[in-house]
């Protein structure tokens, strides 16, 4: 493809992105170097890297980072494992397949604000889950600093497992039939087919789901906002929630922008292997 044609194809998209997104990105970088609150919006004070020092020296930041990483460490593998499990089960059946998939889409497509509210109602006093737990296990659920983080993690598994399941199920439909046939002729059991044919084939999908999940988990906000009712006693702030508090509760806009820059950098560190693959793909001659 010639350079001129390329500019023509990419032009509109790049133009709209640069026009609208450069300002926020640059603003984050510039404002992150200033002391700025809602009171001195017109006259920010240059403070250099002091905001960054403050963020990195703040124990609350490290607490929120710790919870975010814990969240990622539990929620992301759980999604992938459960997603794979149900994709494999779905692959075994033909009847009612459409019904199972449609049902799985429900928590996934729901508007996040709505989904979180609904989820909270199930566990609130008088909600079915709360009631059944009390009846079946004689357990009275209270919102405290143990249960709220668990609920936040459970909520994310509830909403995101279906996505993993559908992507992996789609992947299972494209397994190389020759390899499967060869494995069958050799008398390989289902488990061996899974281990030697299916899982290697799905590897890039695991990476895809993993990356998307990590990016989203890193920025989880809505469920924390609703499930904690913005009450700090539950000890379950994530990075984005901390960012929100710094910006709106304490009005430290400069510090919040410094955090945004740190978030972008953090995500990029996680994505380095993925970027290397893309670089190779794009520059190879074919």
């Amino acid at each position, binding site marked *: 493809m010639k350079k001129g*044609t*390329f500019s023509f194809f990419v032009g*509109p998209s*790049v133009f709209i992105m640069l*026009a609208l997104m450069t*300002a926020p990105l640059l603003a984050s970088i510039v404002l992150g170097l200033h002391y700025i609150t809602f009171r001195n919006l017109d006259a920010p004070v240059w403070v250099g890297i002091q905001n960054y020092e403050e963020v990195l020296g703040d124990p609350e930041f490290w607490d929120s980072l710790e919870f975010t990483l814990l969240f990622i460490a539990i929620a992301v593998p759980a999604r992938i494992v459960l997603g794979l499990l149900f994709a494999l089960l779905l692959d075994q059946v033909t009847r009612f397949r459409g019904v199972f998939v449609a049902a799985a889409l429900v928590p996934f497509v*729901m508007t*996040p604000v709505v989904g979180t509210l609904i989820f909270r109602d199930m566990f609130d006093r008088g909600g079915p889950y709360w009631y059944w737990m009390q009846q079946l296990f004689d357990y009275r659920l209270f919102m405290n600093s143990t249960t709220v983080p668990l609920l936040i993690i459970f909520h994310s598994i509830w909403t995101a497992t279906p996505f993993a399941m559908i992507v992996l199920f*789609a992947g299972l439909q494209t397994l190389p039939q020759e390899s499967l046939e060869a494995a069958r002729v050799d008398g390989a059991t289902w488990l061996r087919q*899974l281990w030697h044919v299916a899982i290697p084939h799905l590897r890039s999908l695991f990476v895809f789901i993993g990356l998307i999940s990590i990016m989203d988990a890193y920025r989880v906000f809505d469920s924390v906002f609703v499930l904690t009712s913005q009450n700090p006693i539950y000890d379950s702030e994530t990075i984005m929630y901390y960012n929100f508090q710094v910006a709106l509760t304490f009005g430290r806009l400069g510090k919040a922008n410094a955090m945004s820059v740190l978030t972008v950098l953090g995500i990029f560190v996680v994505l380095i292997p993925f970027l290397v693959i893309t670089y190779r793909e794009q520059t190879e001659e074919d």
Partner: protein
Amino acid sequence: MTRTDNPIARFLIYIALALFTLYNVLPFAWTIMSSIKLPKDANARIPRFVFRPTGENYSELWLNMTPEAFAPFGLALLLIFFILVVIALSAKRIPAPNSAVYLGCIFAGVAVALALPRVVNTAEFYDYLINSVIVTTGTLCVSLSIGALAGYGLARFRHVVSVYILVIALAFRSLPSLALVLPFYYLGQLSGLYDTHILLILCLVATNQPFTIWMLRSFFMEIPREIEEAAMIDGAGRLKSFISVIVPIMWPGIITTGLFTLLLAYNDFLLARILTQINWTLPVGIAQFTGGEDPGHVTLAAAASVSVTLPILVVIIFFQKYLIRGLASGAVKG
């Protein structure tokens, strides 16, 4: 993979899938129940699964008039809807191009929906629905058309410039939405477009564009070059061969990407909140039901939740086959 023939194993598989289905839909099913309860049933200490259903919550949410007064108009609407569906389903027998019939039906439906508030006294929630539909459709059209062009260009132009564009797009995507609040708000005020659909559509397109071009690029990478080269040898230009050869075989990929764009645009809360004052979309409209102590509040919030979720659910379930086919064809190879 090999399917098991063991009847016990098959039985257990169905049980497991049924339980998973229950776990997926139970919260929404509970909300549907709450939405047709009277407040005294919804606020009971022990959850009630048997109760006298009521339509009051929905009529309070959607109408500024009594349900009795609305009934004739409701019947008329159902009739119009029914006629349009019948016409669309029998498109093959009408002596006109199929697409013209479909477009005509959609156009007529939209015209009726837009004219409705002039005839019937609808509540604000109806305006939010109209705003949501306009903004989502606009975002979808703009985002997919410019995104498809860019995704195709990036897949075909093997050069380090493409990598720069993709990496910058990723940086934009990873920017926390909180960082967008102030710049976008100022942009709205400065351009005089604050509280208009156009501004919201442009901002949603810009924020969704990184995801769109990354995803479409991975779909276009799968298409062998020979296909459009053959068309170009016949004398077609790049753009013409793109539209007449590539796009038709890429429908599953474009629809899949479109569904994700649709979800992002329809569910967006933050941008719609900061860029509008009265022209709210549904997610912003529903946020007013998230707090409060009024006992009638729970049932109204449930009715609002169901009303927001159902349209998007119907669309996605309608397209689920394309979703699976698209994901299977595009994202797998990496």
